[in-house]
């Protein structure tokens, strides 16, 4: 396996910014993602949360489990609310505060994409993290445009599972030519933390796409959460990569012998209705997409 990561000798910072009492389900990828990201960004961070599971996870008023300020905003406004906060901080001369927009896949790929695209086009100085659990989980598992083809959700019932492929949000953001786009996941916490630290040092719009399983919505055992993240990377379903300025790609992990997608799919109830031919089709698509990514990474710019 070819691994290009900043460092393999890494310890996760001990300092916590997320405390017990949050109300995430067992094995929530989104919860662990926040915990790690705040470790990376530190206390001078303001978190902007649109409607999503994290609206709930942080805790009901007057409680709150993060030790950084949290600004809740309307579902479609995460990116631009972060821009507003950043502008207000800058005009007051507060230059050392990181503004983190933290949205789900629905809030990012669907209802929030207009304001996200606007922010990216203006290159506003924020970090936008999308924790992707591949459906609207807050409202009870409805499909989003991040739901993979073939998956069950309550609005793509068995017998009529999702027919469209997952929207490729990272490539959409790369097309905006923003300074930094990266993907990350929880089985590789060092990589995830490094990417957020790197993003914090760059001025302009940074977009990080976190693969964050939802055992409840994916119908899988919560203790498999990290395994699923690792399988997503080692099957090439969710490759770990970075792209700088819209052109310079780095793939962080290139498995020498990718694991068949079947191994990933079979652990999740949301795929249990898939037939052999569906799985073959998914394998083909994954291979095709990864080859395309490899080609992009070979671009000399």
């Amino acid at each position, binding site marked *: 396996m070819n691994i290009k990561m900043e460092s393999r000798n890494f310890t996760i910072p001990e300092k916590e910014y997320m405390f017990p009492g949050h109300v995430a389900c067992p094995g929530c990828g989104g919860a662990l993602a926040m915990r790690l990201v705040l470790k990376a960004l530190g206390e001078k961070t303001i978190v902007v949360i649109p409607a999503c599971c994290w609206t709930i996870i942080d805790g009901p008023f007057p409680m709150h489990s993060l030790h950084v300020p949290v600004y*809740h905003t309307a579902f479609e406004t995460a990116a631009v609310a972060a821009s507003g906060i950043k502008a207000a901080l800058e005009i007051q001369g507060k230059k050392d505060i990181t503004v983190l927009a933290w949205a789900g896949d629905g809030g990012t790929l669907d209802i929030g994409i207009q304001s996200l695209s606007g922010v990216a086009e203006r290159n506003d100085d924020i970090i936008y993290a999308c924790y992707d659990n591949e459906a609207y989980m807050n409202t009870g598992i409805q499909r989003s*445009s991040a739901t993979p083809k073939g998956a069950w959700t309550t*609005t793509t*019932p068995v*017998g009529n599972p999702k027919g469209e492929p997952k929207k490729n949000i990272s490539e959409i953001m790369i097309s905006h030519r923003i300074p930094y786009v990266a993907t990350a996941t929880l089985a590789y916490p060092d990589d995830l933390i490094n990417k957020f630290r790197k993003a914090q040092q760059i001025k302009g719009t940074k977009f990080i796409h976190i693969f964050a399983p939802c055992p409840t919505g994916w119908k899988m055992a919560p203790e498999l959460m990290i395994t699923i993240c690792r399988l997503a990377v080692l099957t090439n379903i969710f490759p770990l990569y970075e792209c700088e300025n819209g052109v310079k790609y780095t793939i962080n992990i290139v498995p020498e012998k990718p694991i068949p997608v079947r191994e990933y799919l079979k652990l999740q109830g949301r795929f249990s209705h898939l037939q052999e031919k569906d799985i073959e089709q998914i394998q083909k698509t994954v291979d095709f997409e990864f080859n395309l990514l490899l080609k992009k990474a070979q671009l000399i710019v």
Partner: protein
Amino acid sequence: MKKVVTGNHAVSYGVKLARAQVIAAYPITPQTQVVELLSEFCASGKLNAKFIKVESEHSAMAACIAASASGARAFTATSAHGLALMHEMLHWAVGARTPVVMANINRAMGPGWSVWTDQNDSLAQRDVGWIQIYCESNQEVLDTTIQAFKIAERVLLPVMLILDAFVLSHTSEPVDIPDQEQVDEFLPPYNLKTKLDVNNPRAYGGLTNPDHYFELRYKIQKAHTEALAVIKEIDEEYKKHFGRQYGLVEPYRCDDAKVILVTSGTITSTARLVIDEMRDEGRKVGLLKYRVFRPTPREILRDILYRAQKVCVIDRNISFGHGGIFAQEIKSVLYGLPASPPVYSFIIGLGGRDVTPKDIREIIEYTYKEETPAEPVIYRGVRL
């Protein structure tokens, strides 16, 4: 067929029976089950409709309006923030005279985020020109859904039917679900006279200068005025087919009542019990359920209310800077009548706080007892 269903599923069954052809919707608590069941109906072929799983409510409404203008019966459902996001398109549906039907599950507006019931979401859309009907039971929800299509298509105005979050949306009740043939007899297929048509190339909704715009608005208002009679007629026709009717408003034990309480939505059911109790005690109290909110059923409200000595109104909503919205409406309806009864205005239960029989009794008692209300608006249960 009798079935035990939630308020949300009562909507879905109504939409299926009405044979909606285009559904465009976006999930939001507490509306999601409406959409989930409809998507199952579409997936299994039980309902032959195109379901557009849009990326926002703004798009949901835009798609429904366009579908409706192109000759298909269109439906959506939403709540709170979803309805607010649709605002621009709510105007559009009216201006375009498209008979879209929508269910709104009354949910409080954030921030702070709330999923529980109050009426500020739908009442904030009071002036956009939609017909608004507030429902009390799951049976009424189903029946109103079917009626709504017929009303909308007759007067060419969109119709919003409204039910309380959780208290109705997630509560199961036995509901009589009519047969498809019966509904087909009652509700003819969608047939818009003017629609997008390549054989009749017209432009819709273009720039309209001051020479024309005013008349278009006047006609919308005229349609609202006419809608009152149409809603009544369709309700009576519904009774002939299905044995149930609801009226524009529903007076309950109002004859000879000295104090009449005005309610809407599910608070009405609780209030009915309180009225019965107080009547048993020999108190002359009555109840008026405000069902059709837009267009305003002015005459019938006046006929019933002016006979009372006092009127009290329960609002689970607030127009900030003014007061309870139903109370405001009732006052304006009664204004100018000789010796019109004073209106006592109570705001209660915002953000889904329980409204108990005790609350309702105390509101009525207060109105009975006090010569005039202590304040123009009385807040019940605020903990400061």
